[in-house]
């Protein structure tokens, strides 16, 4: 595959964009970055929760019911843990 950057450089003159286009593009980038961040979190959460919840050998291509429940709980508890850490840090900051 051609290098994406090369094809960009060759064809793009962003200075020619109208202010409206520029703003639209900026918003688009903001949205895409957020999407990418969320996707990144999903990847690392799946990694963590797979280790916790899929412990047996692979017998089929589907998640069984208990694994599915475990994965959903895993996400929620991970986030609970995350919030607990943040809350506690805040409490510590307020103490000092």
């Amino acid at each position, binding site marked *: 595959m051609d290098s994406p950057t090369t094809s960009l450089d060759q064809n793009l003159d962003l200075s020619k964009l109208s202010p409206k286009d520029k703003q639209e593009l900026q918003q688009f980038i903001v949205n895409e970055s957020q999407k990418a961040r969320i996707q990144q979190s999903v*990847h690392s959460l799946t990694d963590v929760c797979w280790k916790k919840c899929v412990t047996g050998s692979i017998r089929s291509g589907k998640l069984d019911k208990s694994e599915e429940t475990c994965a959903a709980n895993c996400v*929620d508890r991970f*986030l609970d843990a995350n919030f607990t850490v943040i809350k506690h840090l805040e409490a510590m900051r307020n103490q000092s």
Partner: protein
Amino acid sequence: MENVSNSLGFGAASADPKAAVMNQVRQEAAMTNARQLIEKVNEHCFDKCVPKPGSSLSSGETTCFTQCMEKYMAAWNVVSRQYIGRIQQENGKSGMF
């Protein structure tokens, strides 16, 4: 001028730089996502399906791989649904994030 975006049917990149940038960003995001998924599937499924690497991948191991891959993607979807649901819920509560 012919380039990657054009050849993939994304339309006139040189005429509309905004659309070209958008497509580029979308493509790269999809690529990163796919690469990440492949890496993780390989890591976890190799762990599950090839406990003792032999001289070649057996048919049993190959079957295990395809099943494991489907399973991993199912897990990904469950996690994604749960995570996004939770974020939205927390967002509605406090406006954090």
